[in-house]
Structure formats: C-alpha cells, structure tokens
C-alpha cells in the first residue's frame, strides 16, 4: 500500500543526505539556536525593560496580552494548519492518512509556537522585574503559545476558528486596555504553580489537536492553503503589493457605497479622494487610534524612552502607510494617474496628515504621562513629512527585482532583491527620523524640522506621473 512516508521519500530522493541525517542537523540547529538565542533574547529584553519594577506590572502584563492578541489574530488569518498548494492538491485529496499528510504543517506550527512562547516568556521575565524566575516564565510563555496553537487547530478542524480566535484576541485587547486605564495593583502572580500546570494543559490540548489531524476537513485546508499559496506566490513570484490589492478589491467589492458630492476642485479633489477612502474604513482608523497608546504603554512597562520613540516612529509610519493607498493604487495603475493628471505632490498630503495626527496623539499621551516634556509634541509636525515620504516610497516601490544577484555568504545566500524591496521606504522613514531617534532635545527638534522640510520639498518637486 502507498504510504505518505513512501511518497515523501520518493519525492525527496534527490536530496543529498538521508532522512535521519537531516533530522539530526535540524535538532542540532534548534539546540544551538535555543542555547545561544534565548540568553541573548533575555538580555535584550532586560535591557529594553530595564526600568521595570513591581509597580509596572499592569502595563507590562497589558503589553504581553496585546502581543498574545496579535499572535491569535495571526493564527486566525493563517490557518493555522496549512500545506503547500501541491500537497493539498495531490495528497490531501487522496486516500492517504490525513494526519501523516499534515504532520509537516503541524510541526512547523508547533515549532513556531515554541519560538513565539520563548520570546513572550523572556519579555514576561523582563517586564516583571529584571529576569527573575526565568525558567518559570519561559515555561509559561511556551505553554500559552502552544495552547493557543493547539486551540487554533481544534477550532480550525471545527470550522469556526476565525470567530473564536478573533473574539479571544479582542477580549485580550480589552483586558490590556482595562489594565492600562485602571492600573490595578496586581498581586504577585502564582508563577511556579502556573508554570507547572500550564504545560499540562498545553500537552493535553496538543494531544487532542494531534488526534484531530486524522479527520481534518479538506475544505478548511483548501481555504487556508489557497490563502497561504497566494501569499507565498505574491512574495516570491509576483509582488507582495499584489496581495494588498487583492485584499482591498475583495473588501470594496463587498461594501455598499453611496455617492457623495465633491465640494472642492483641482488638486484638493485628489486629496479628498484619499480622505474619502479613509473615512470609508472607520475600522482601520479606530485601530490606529487605539494603537496610539503603544508608546506610553511600552514606557510604562519599564521600556526605555528610546524604545518608546522607536515604537512612535513605527506607528507613525504605519499610520502614513494606511493613508497612502491612493498613491499605491496610482503606482500599480499608472493609467489612473494619467486620467486624473495626478502628480506626486498631492499624494503626500493625507499620509503626512495622518502621520502628524498619530504621532501627535502618541506624543501627547507620553507628555500627559510625564515621560516627555511638553515641547516634545512639536516633533509630530517635524517628523511627519519624513514618515509620509517613506510611506509614499513604500507605496510606489513596485515589484521585487529578482534579477539582482544573490550574495553568497558561505553559510547561505542572501537574495538582495527581496531585501532591497523590504527596506524601500523604511530606509527613508528611518533616515528621515534620525534626529528624533537619537535624542529628544530642542537641538534635535530643530534638526528634525529641517530634515522634514527638505524631504517634503524633494517629494513635492517630483513631477513624473508614472512610477
């Protein structure tokens, strides 16, 4: 009888090493990564949250809950059990043992959950006071993420994963918000009992998930694998921006729109087009508004001011990117820019406005919490142009150039095309925010304002319509 193992062996018959050797190498690599990586991670987390003490327990816990919420959203989006499109087409829809077919995907999920748990655990140790009870924190972190992964598999098998995982994620975010607002004095957590009991729960759920793999419905696998297949194809073969366009098209197709008049003419009309897009996605604006608490949350959890500023810049860039959909659409469809005779100058207005609003709110919260002086709010208008220009560069970066040669480092090659694509725009945003990232002083504010004005000037002078 044909088995999955037999098929896999035949398919991989061209591999240089036998199977046991590959498994050995993987184990050794994982062991080395754990041995070297975890202490470094803990040291890094302790450095980031060096100022954390018992009084910072609530913000720290809120930050961890927010991270866990993000992880659950990711699980809901990915599957979490996926197979390659080829495996789904040829192995899932065949009379082979379903669990064996899915072992590979499930193993990847388990390994990812463990890595995420190690990160969460080390961050937990750091925010609860300088890395005490490290083993217990790591055990708890890994247990929580593995439990989440296993629950995701069980919910996926039941066909209801998205609703429940998203609901849990939202509840975690609400709990995080409540922790920030109420700032309760948390009692010392029963860490050791939790560190012992949580792995039991995780193991039980993992065992149930493993058993559920045997009867995993094909339909949910096809859905998840098609989505991941599109993601992988977009990343490696086409362009990741195509994925964004597909998602946006799907979103707008399902929306019922209502025509509204245009009160302005000329270039202001194109700005209004971007504003109309934003106003028709209130959910995005709400999420952005909620995220303005992140810098103050990081700082409250014992993070350094430098870390809070990094989060501020990242958030500002994310806000600007949200408003750059018009520019991205124009870059992908130059015929639109020709029809509307739309230059570059107008495209920067809404990204800059949203970046200004977001960074302004986040800085105001930092000032209100007493972490920064009042005049530091002026960094918002000074940094917003650089962030907006970075977001526009990201929106117009086009497809990945796979013709750029791969740099061979001996231990493996680094494909420069994807690397350059990934850094396009981010580099401008970082360079454009260097004064803010270096220091929050009056001198750096002046330098930041000058840099922002220069970047804005260069962007506005660009006249070419097409990409």
């Amino acid at each position, binding site marked *: 009888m044909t088995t999955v193992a037999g098929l896999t062996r035949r398919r991989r018959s061209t591999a240089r090493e036998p199977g046991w050797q590959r498994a050995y190498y993987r184990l050794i690599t994982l062991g080395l990564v754990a041995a070297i990586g975890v202490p470094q991670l803990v040291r890094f987390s302790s450095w980031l949250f060096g100022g954390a003490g018992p009084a910072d327990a609530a913000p720290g816990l809120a930050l961890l809950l927010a991270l866990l919420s993000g992880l659950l959203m990711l699980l809901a989006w990915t599957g979490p059990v996926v197979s390659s499109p080829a495996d789904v087409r040829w192995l899932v829809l065949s009379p082979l043992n379903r669990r064996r077919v899915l072992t590979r995907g499930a193993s990847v999920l388990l390994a990812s959950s463990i890595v995420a748990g190690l990160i969460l655990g080390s961050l937990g140790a750091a925010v609860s006071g300088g890395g005490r009870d490290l083993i217990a924190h790591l055990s708890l972190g890994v247990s929580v993420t593995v439990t989440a992964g296993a629950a995701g598999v069980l919910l996926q098998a039941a066909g209801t994963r998205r609703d429940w995982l998203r609901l849990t994620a939202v509840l975690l975010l609400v709990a995080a918000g409540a922790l920030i607002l109420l700032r309760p004095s948390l009692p010392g957590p029963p860490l050791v009992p939790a560190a012992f009991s949580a792995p039991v729960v995780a193991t039980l759920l993992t065992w149930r998930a493993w058993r559920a793999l045997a009867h995993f419905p094909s339909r949910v696998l096809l859905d998840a694998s098609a989505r991941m297949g599109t993601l992988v194809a977009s990343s490696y073969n086409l362009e990741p921006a195509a994925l964004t366009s597909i998602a946006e098209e799907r979103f707008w197709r399902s929306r019922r729109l209502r025509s509204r008049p245009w009160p302005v003419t000329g270039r202001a009309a194109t700005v209004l*087009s971007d504003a109309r897009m934003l106003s028709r996605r209130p959910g995005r604006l709400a999420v952005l508004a909620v995220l303005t608490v992140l810098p103050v949350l990081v700082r409250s959890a014992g993070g350094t001011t430098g870390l809070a500023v990094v989060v501020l810049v990242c958030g500002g860039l994310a806000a600007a990117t949200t408003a750059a959909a018009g520019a991205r659409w124009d870059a992908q469809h130059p015929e639109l820019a020709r*029809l509307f005779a739309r*230059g570059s100058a107008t495209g920067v207005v809404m990204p800059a406005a949203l970046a200004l609003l977001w960074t302004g709110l986040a800085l105001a919260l930092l000032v209100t919490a007493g972490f920064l002086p009042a005049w530091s709010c002026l960094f918002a208008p000074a940094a917003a142009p650089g962030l907006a220009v970075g977001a526009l560069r990201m929106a117009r970066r086009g497809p990945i150039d796979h013709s750029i040669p791969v740099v061979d480092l001996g231990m493996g090659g680094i494909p420069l095309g994807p690397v350059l694509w990934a850094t396009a725009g981010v580099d401008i945003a970082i360079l454009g925010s260097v004064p803010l990232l270096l220091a929050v002083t009056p001198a750096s504010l002046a330098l930041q304002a000058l840099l922002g004005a220069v970047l804005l000037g260069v962007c506005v002078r660009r006249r070419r319509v097409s990409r």
Partner: protein
Amino acid sequence: MTRAAREIRFGTGDGRRPVIAAEGVRVTAGAFTVLDRFDLTVDQGEVVALTGVNGAGKSTLLRCLAGLQPVTEGEILVLGAPPRDDETFWRDVGLTTDEQAWYPWLTVREHLELVRRIHAPVGDSCPEPEALLETFGLSDRADVTPMTLSTGQRQRLSLAAMLARPSRLLLLDEPEQGLDQTFRDSLGTLLATYAGDGGTLVMATHDARLAESAGARMVTLHGAGRT
C-alpha cells in the same frame, strides 16, 4: 450631445502647426522592427483610425504618441512638443488602453465627478456626469464600485471618463472592445461630435464601421510600419 468649441491654450491647432507630427519614426523591440520610417500628420478636429492586423504596430504607435515608449529613430511632436509623461501633458491628452483601473473606494458617479473636479475649470465644454451616465447606459450602476462592473460596462466608464474632462487630444486603443454593436454605433457619433467641437482623436481599431461612423481618416499599418 452638444459641446461648445474648445478653448485653445497653447496656440497649437491654429492651422499652422498640426496636433500630431510624426516623422521617420522607427521603433524596434530587440531584433524586431515594429515601426519603420513611419510618418503621420494629424490636424486639429481630425479623427484618425489606425487599422491593420494584430502586431502591425497600432498600439505601439499610440504608446509612442503618448510618450510611454521611446522611438529608436525619428521625431514625434504632440501639441507642438515631444510627448512627456507629466501632469501638464495629461491635462491636454486623454489615453485609454485595455489596462483599465479604478479606485475601488469610489463609486462610478464619483469617478466621473472626480475627473471633472480635477480638470476644473470645465465650463460647458464637457457633459455633466448625469448626462454621461445616461448616454453610456450606466445610470443604474452609478452608485457601485467599478470593481463590480462587467468588462463592457468598465469600457463604457473608461470612455465616459475621457469625455467628462476637457482635452485637446484623445488616444484610444481599440475603444470598441467589450461593447455591443448598438453602442458601437452610438460611440462613433459621440467621437465625431468630439472632433466636431475641436478635439483631435487617434484610435487603433479593428472595427471599420466604428471608424466610418466617427468620420475617421483610415491609416492602415502593414507591419514594420509600412503605410
């Protein structure tokens, strides 16, 4: 549909200089010559239909006239200057190709209104969006995103958007694509009216009836640009 005479802003089309002047144009793609020693002159108010078999170079010529493809040899002047891909050029020139795109977050009516608003002042020279929706049979789809339109409806919207804005030159690549025969006849009349009001039009087409109803001068390309 009535259109007032257009305001001439750059002094072209004044009877002394043609709207399009292409001389000795040669375009190559690798070892293949797409157009060779091609000449074309188009005056203001004229409709020119480029015809020929697939691969004869009709679309390539339109792309050259729009400044989207450089010529290997020769010279092209559009509205008195070499075509250039910038905001000023596209204020005077409209181009439709088979690559159509729309903002998914705007409705059909909002697109037509946006085109007018951006190209303001429009005056009485261009039809109102409501009139265009009626003429192009899109009234009942005016409040949906263009993403939900059929191929033919999108082509209608694309052409309606061209006529919603003031322009001095329209370059249309197979405007008949996806349109039913009844509407093709109406389109010919619309294009003839556009030219009658002072606009200039060059289109690549396989539909001789459309060219005839638009009152077009036929220019047949025979591959490698021989006319």
